[in-house]
């Protein structure tokens, strides 16, 4: 039996009915990974995964996700399993502890088959900045899968795994989900613990999930999200069952369309898909309301001050002294720092460290960092105001479908604009997701649903109802003609 493209819920059912054993499932997974050409994994966890699968088959482990193989983005620390964050500087780093998200998913019984490729330190929108090579989009191997969680998105899209974790700092789950034609969700900032997530920009980073549909995402969030005393920014709200409201009626619900998100200059297919999706939601009883968010245009510049500032400080610990890459033949301490970091980090990471160092430096702090904090508050207020009028906000997930590998690497600004629609929800901290809703020249495009604070259930409800009435999410790269 082929397990490729099966959803999490389908595989769960097969396991429960004993139509397949966990061992077979995991074995098959590794077989598929070994024949894959997408380069979506950096490190495999074969021996441990097969052992765990056997344990499950012998009835030794239980849980909501028991026996199911999943992939972890290589940004989550995994005990005794190499965690590189896509960087040379952590090429040989083996963490002595598990990230809370990893721990939670493991407690639910899932089996981690490996660590997925990603943009170095999650800095990128194409997965081309990975030290371990670019990931290829399974829909077209010459194209990028998006980033930074490109490995996770590609692995799910290719059917290697039914689910994978991701992290989203400015769109790193939603944009690759869109470009790979799968479903991805980033919960409210603080819902999932950041303990054990290698920090890029602490005030924006949030863990989330990739799966083949919204229902599976809900099931994953039930385990990914938790209050964690080890993370001071973790929210203390009670645990929610994200599956509970997934079948609610959308009648009378209000969907906001952001006036300032101009989609008129996007490709015809992107515009057409958007109009089509509006019609589907209308047919489900939802109404559309235009909301004005005048400060949302500040999102990209604000983000590119806040995120690099935090990253410049967060990445200071990679100094060649305690762990990670250390340059050889150094003259003195300063030389050790300079050479280890120069050789250990890639260009994009260096670019952002430089920007961050600059915006925080004496004399520039007020003009950049402080200003960015102010505009961030204004953007947040725009969301608060908008959500007083609507239940969810809808927009394209990214400006276009997957682009050719190498086509934007020389133009960082062009690359940064990939996250035009996604960045604002990170700045505000609200939950958001991307679902497949069409194709542009045989390449998937995504629809973004943004929810109010802690309203993951609401956007999952919208997404699930949409997917019950469309089939974009069940298409896969082997479909042949996708248009």
């Amino acid at each position, binding site marked *: 039996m082929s397990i490729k493209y099966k959803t999490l819920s389908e595989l769960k059912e097969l396991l429960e009915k004993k139509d397949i054993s966990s061992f077979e499932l995991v074995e098959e997974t590794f077989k598929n990974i070994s024949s894959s050409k997408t380069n979506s994994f950096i490190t495999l966890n074969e021996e441990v995964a097969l052992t765990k699968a056997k344990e499950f088959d012998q009835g030794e482990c239980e849980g909501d996700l028991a026996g199911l193989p999943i992939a972890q983005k290589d940004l989550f620390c995994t005990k005794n399993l190499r965690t590189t964050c896509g960087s040379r500087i*952590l090429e040989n780093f083996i963490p002595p502890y598990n990230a809370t998200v990893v721990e939670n998913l493991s407690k639910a019984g899932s089996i981690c088959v490996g660590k997925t490729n990603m943009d170095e330190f999650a800095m990128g929108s194409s997965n081309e900045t990975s030290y371990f090579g670019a990931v290829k989009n399974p829909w077209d191997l010459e194209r990028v899968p998006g980033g930074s969680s490109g490995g996770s998105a590609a692995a799910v899209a290719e059917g290697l795994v039914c689910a994978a974790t991701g992290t989203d700092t400015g769109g790193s789950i939603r944009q690759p989900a869109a470009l790979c034609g799968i479903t991805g969700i980033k919960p409210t900032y603080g819902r999932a613990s950041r*303990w054990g997530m290698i920090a890029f920009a602490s005030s924006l980073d949030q863990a989330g999930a990739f799966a083949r549909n919204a229902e599976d995402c809900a099931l994953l969030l039930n385990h990914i999200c938790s209050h964690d005393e080890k993370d001071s920014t973790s929210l203390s709200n009670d645990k929610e069952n994200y599956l509970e409201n997934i079948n609610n009626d959308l009648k009378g619900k209000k969907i906001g369309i952001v006036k300032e998100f101009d989609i008129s200059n996007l490709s015809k297919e992107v515009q057409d898909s958007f109009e089509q999706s509006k019609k589907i939601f209308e047919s489900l009883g939802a109404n559309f309301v235009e909301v004005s968010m005048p400060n949302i245009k500040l999102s990209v510049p604000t983000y590119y001050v806040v995120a690099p500032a935090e990253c410049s*400080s967060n990445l200071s610990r*990679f100094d060649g002294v*305690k762990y990670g890459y250390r340059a050889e033949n150094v003259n003195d301490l300063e030389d050790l720092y300079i050479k280890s970091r120069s050789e250990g980090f890639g260009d994009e990471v260096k670019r952002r460290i430089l920007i961050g160092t600059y915006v925080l*430096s004496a004399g520039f702090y007020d003009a950049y960092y402080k200003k960015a904090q102010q505009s961030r508050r204004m953007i947040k207020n725009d969301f608060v105001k908008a959500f007083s009028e609507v239940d969810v906000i809808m927009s394209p997930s990214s400006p276009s479908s997957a682009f050719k590998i190498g086509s934007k690497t020389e133009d960082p600004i062009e690359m940064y604009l990939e996250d035009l629609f996604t960045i604002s929800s990170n700045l505000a901290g609200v939950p958001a997701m991307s679902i497949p809703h069409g194709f542009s020249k045989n390449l998937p495009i995504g629809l973004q649903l943004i929810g109010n604070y802690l309203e993951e259930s609401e956007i999952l409800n919208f997404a699930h109802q949409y997917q019950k009435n469309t089939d974009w999410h069940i298409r896969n790269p082997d479909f042949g003609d996708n248009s």
Partner: protein
Amino acid sequence: MSWETVIGLEVHAQLSTSTKLFSSASTKFGSEPNTQVDLVDLGLPGVLPVVNKDAFKKAITFGLAINADINQESTFDRKNYFYPDLPKGYQITQMTQPIVEGGSIEINVDGNIKTINITRAHLEEDAGKSIHDAYPDKSVIDLNRAGTPLLEIVSEPEISSAKEAVSYMKALHQLVTFLDVCDGDMSQGSLRCDANVSIRKVGDSELGTRTEIKNINSFKFIEKAINFEIKRQIKVLENGDKVIQETRLYDSLKDETRPMRSKEFANDYRYFPDPDLLPVIISDDEMDEIKDSFPELPNEKSKRYISELKIDENEAQIVSSSRELSIFFELAVDSESDPKLAANLLVGEIGSLLNKDNIKINESNLSSDNFNTLLKRISDGTISKKIAKTVLADIWDSGKDADEIIKNQGLVQIQDESIIQDVAQKILEANPDQVAAFKGGKDKLFGFFVGQVMKETQGKANPKSVNDILKKLLS
């Protein structure tokens, strides 16, 4: 030309919490290198800080003691710089909204009281230690100290001499130890200071260029380092040169300050709010709790000793001046032991023993329980105050129980008046000349007779009985 000195001190007090400021590792001093570190202290990828509220309690207690404003909402910032003993590449500190602002401390310089205003006191984490002399060809790092909570207490530049600086440090030392916010052990670096020193012509209103002397860790060195620096700056200015604003280190072996390498301090720290930590809010209830458990300070203690326990002013001040001594005193005194006698022995006999051994009372062999027993034996007449000193000396060496020493060495006071009468009789008979002289008006000889009786009884005779009996026999 005459110069005046302007000094401001930045004192780092290690807070005596059991765990670190942002991790659950122990803060104990002197353990094997790198055994008191957890994932957070190592600055591993992915770890996050969680605030130790106990450190806040201690910082607030200090703030209340100096009548400062307490910011019930305070924040943490990152101070970014590279150093091997700083695992994260930044120190978490309170730059913009410190927990304590304002307040003042009174110092006593040769009997004159002066008030030094405090700018702020903020929480921050200590760094680890770089060790450069353990191996011939490499430097090594001990991270045991990394993350230990520090309260940095910043004074206004209102200190005008090395002597005042020492008084200020001593006042701070007394305060933080009494409040139990810091163990005050300067040799272990629990309390250390950076001194900002500048000089200007008497009458000038503008401050001169200052230098900062880093990490001074004894009262003696504070005085020496500052005095050296003042002299050096005067010399520089009188030669027509300019004082360079720089960071200097005090070398106690050479008794001089010298500049640190410029690389070690030429940093732009790029402070910004730590995104891993939310503002720390101290509720009114928490504030009340801290106020309710506020310890009694030396002045109040001294006043209480005088009024309630009828202790001499001088002795009361000495006993209340140190936390250890006052705790010891209060534990030793009860309804059956005389507080006046206790204070008297603590200041006198025990004080000299402590000075001689250069230790604190809690480091001696004398426990408060044992001292209590000793006091009771004096009060109930078992031994005389003189014998008590013999017993004390024994305890000091052996740590044995007072009663055991009294019993084993037969030191019980002779109360039987017939025995004393016999001895006195013998003494008078053996010294007919002195008896005659006494009767002839040489009153001072009475002391000689007392001394002889005491000598004969090995000091065990009840002194009051000896007096009475001798008076009767000589009349």
